[in-house]
């Protein structure tokens, strides 16, 4: 395998503004992909404090907001757009729940985690300003791949668990 190994000074490697953000899908794109051909009707819910407490008790995951962005699907099932807190940032994701209440698919909508705190830290980078003539390499536009960044999916799987519980206790309940 041919490969070329380069050591790039940290000051010459910058994250594209604002941070290393990758937008995968818009909510509309995710809806079209996860429920092709179906019509989705918004059925947004404001959870009561009692419902939030019940959800937390049932799934052991914190409920951060009472606002639930859920859509009813014409062919059966629900589409929910939500977010979890990653290492530093919110990670928006979408869950497709089928008519039987099982997870059909999960798509991450955006990823805003950064590559190394030191890259994102403006103050840390500022100390090198003017010290290089090299054009900085931009994460995202010049370098799209990172090897070795072990991005845990734990917070997302916890988020899915919380939404399944929310579905069972609120959306699927007769007076939900």
């Amino acid at each position, binding site marked *: 395998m*041919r490969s070329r*190994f380069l*050591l790039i000074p940290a000051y010459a490697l910058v994250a594209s503004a604002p941070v290393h953000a990758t937008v995968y899908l818009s909510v509309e794109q995710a809806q079209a992909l996860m429920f092709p051909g179906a019509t989705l009707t918004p059925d947004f819910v404001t959870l009561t404090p009692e419902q939030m407490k019940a959800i937390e008790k049932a799934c052991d995951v914190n409920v951060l907001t009472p606002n639930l962005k859920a859509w009813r699907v014409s062919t059966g099932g629900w589409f929910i757009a939500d977010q979890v807190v990653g290492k530093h940032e919110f990670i928006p994701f979408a869950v497709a729940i089928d008519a039987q209440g099982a997870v059909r698919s*999960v798509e991450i909508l955006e990823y805003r985690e950064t590559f*190394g705190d030191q890259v994102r830290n403006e103050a840390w980078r500022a100390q090198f300003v003017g010290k290089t003539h090299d054009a900085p*390499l931009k994460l995202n536009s010049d370098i799209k791949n*990172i090897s*070795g960044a072990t991005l845990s*999916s734990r917070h997302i799987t916890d988020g899915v668990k919380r939404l399944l519980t929310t579905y069972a206790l609120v959306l699927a309940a007769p007076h939900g």
Partner: protein
Amino acid sequence: MHSSSPLRTVERARPLLGTTVNIRVEYADELAAHRAIDAAFAAVASVHGAMSFHEADSDLARLHRTRCGVRVQLAEQTAEVLREALKLAALSNGVFDVSIATQLVAWGLLPQPAHVNRPAPDACWRDIHLDEEHGVRLERPLWIDLGGIAKGYAVDCAIEALRAHGIDSGCVNAGGDLRTLGGGPHRIVIDTGEAAASHHPVLELGEAAVATSHSRALPDHAAAPHVHGQARTAAGRRECATVVAERCIHADALTKLVLALGPASTDLLLHYDATAYWQDADGCWTTLGTSP
């Protein structure tokens, strides 16, 4: 995404294999690109389901529940990964050993499995007997974790799925174990886990697989996800290994051997026509294996 270019890029991500798997493809037909990505994610999910240590209905969980000596039929893919793992174990004389799950559970890095046989303290890869018809039999009770190799295999399966759907340029990245499609050149930055590193390594390559392993971000104690199979001690507490190979299953598994053996992994790398970029505890880089 440049509207002037005939090829556009689409990238999606799903939580799988305990990490975030993202798939990026270049396409002329958007719908076909999404279908290809759907198929690639399905391939990863199928590996996840069959080879997970945690999932109660995985092949491994079934094996761990079965009485010693009784043959268990594995899915073809699980058998393929286990065969590669046993080959690596034989070549490395047990430095790569999938029966280290016992250590990982003891260190709290894998969950305690339920309703399984208690592993024999000195059981190892030599107690795993795989036959030609994808059946496996354990001579002594042990727990298998394919975490050090299955992620790379899943990436290979995803790449095959993309190819089968007519995609010829893109990348599948499972939390740092990745494989590119098309000549690129692809640029990959290696996250070595160093705090405030003065330099970042960047790889430039064509169609290849790359995997990186280190455990620098973990708290400083004896436990680490990379285990020297013979010594049963944590490997690579201070080092970082990146391996470039044709297939990601090999790149993934070889990173563990480079972490455990350092420069002594050279022959193994040559066997797989792989190149390693190894950073020692002092931060110095050495190129090992096939000359890049």
